[in-house]
């Protein structure tokens, strides 16, 4: 993570963005909306008011309607990419069975969640994955047969590990959370998820 870099990159982008604002009214409204958000929330459970603040990436996506100019997006994606920590032993494939459990769990980070308990992957909330689970969301693309279709060699392993660690490194304003980046999932858990998607033995690829 390089919060400083992020903030810097976002700052560099802002004058440009301000200049392209079609009407001043939009910027004014955004400012009012921010002020309203700031005054009208209260902390509850583990969800503190600090969660209302944007980091550099969120600022950029918010200000551009999730469609930042390509050169800024590339710059920030590179920053996000630089923050991805791959396992030091180079092993990216874990146990798909444990991956399935993590993918199933939607627990974590809400004000009703116990902060002491491990966080789930929420994957089935948004993705079709193993065929047995028919209750899956469609906010993200289907990942059924992911390894069968995309291979399971080192490059794709690295991609999937990185994508789960920080989806925004590949697609700056992706709707997918940055699970490793924010500390929701640890190295071991992400490995298990990589196996769920890529292991030939995983039901995903049967």
């Amino acid at each position, binding site marked *: 993570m390089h919060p400083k870099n992020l903030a810097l990159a976002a700052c560099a982008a802002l004058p440009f963005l301000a200049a392209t604002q079609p009407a001043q009214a939009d910027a004014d409204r955004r400012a009012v*909306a921010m002020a309203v958000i700031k005054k009208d929330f209260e902390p509850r459970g583990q969800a503190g008011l600090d969660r209302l603040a*944007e980091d550099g990436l969120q600022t950029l996506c*918010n200000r551009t309607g999730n469609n930042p100019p390509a050169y*800024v997006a*590339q710059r920030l994606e590179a920053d996000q*990419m630089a923050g991805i920590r791959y396992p030091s032993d180079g092993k990216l494939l874990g146990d798909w069975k444990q991956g399935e459990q993590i993918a199933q769990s*939607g627990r974590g980070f809400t004000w009703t969640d116990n902060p002491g308990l491990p966080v789930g992957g929420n994957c089935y909330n948004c993705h079709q994955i193993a065929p047995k689970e028919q209750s*899956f969301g469609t906010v993200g693309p*289907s990942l059924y*047969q992911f390894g069968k279709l995309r291979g399971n060699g080192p490059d794709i392993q690295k991609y999937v590990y990185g994508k789960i660690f920080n989806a925004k490194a590949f697609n700056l304003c992706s709707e997918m959370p940055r699970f490793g980046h924010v500390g929701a999932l640890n190295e071991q858990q992400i490995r298990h998820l990589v196996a769920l998607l890529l292991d030939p033995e995983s039901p995903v690829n049967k």
Partner: protein
Amino acid sequence: MRIALILAVATATAAALPIPGWAQAKAAARKPPPPAAAPKAEEKDAATLEFEKFRAEMEDSNPAELFEAKGEELWKARRGPRNVSLAESCDLGLGVGVVKGAYVQTPRHYPDAGAVMDAERRIVWCMVEKQGFNFDDIAKRPFASDTHTPDITSLVTYVAAQSKNMKLAVPLDDPKVREAYEIGKEIAAYRAGPYDFSCNTCHGADGKRIRMQALPNISTPQGALRGVQGWPGYRMTGGVMLTHQWRMGDCFRQQRFPQPKYASDAVAYLLTYLIGTANGLEYKGPGIKR
């Protein structure tokens, strides 16, 4: 001048970016997406089927009606430290005591309060300003639990029921309401928190689901209507009567945000955006939710 300079620097940096470290992973990412089996949008899980059966059975005796009746009593009774009724003191926007059609014309701007208010917020305002109740007492436990339904919930249900089968008509030609609508739209798009979610993450496109739960696209009139229809609603899960304000709060919870304050501007503006987007479409009254 300064802008141009920064721009030039940023462009140069981007062009000279060292990428080899992750080039391979990035290349893997660019492979065409798999022609994956299309998700079966029509397929319903057991819980959904069960719920639809329940709703069909309940069609004639919606449990919301119990709260409606309780709310009517509360509306007409002299209550609070000042011992006045809402019926003789509360103006929901169509004149003191007028309830018919008021719900579908909120949120609106109330000059006496100097604020844009949704129906629930307005009733709370009347309870405080006219009847003399204490706001903090109401805001302490504003929503129903399995053991307790606050008076405000019954009142909102009563008022909402008096707009059954009427067209939504949020007065967006009032500049103050229009402004609230635009701010609400901004709030709905605001991404933050540990998962970078905004309302639009889940409700910004057609045909999306979380697990098997269909997510209305609140940026379209029909989608927004789905987000309005049936609220306030009797929720099967837990058997509780819940208001539109509650729904907003629970979505902020799912968004991993902190809690919006009860009867606040933020919620009123969000509801102005949501209901205003569905303007012109018919509201069917309090309903049943899963």
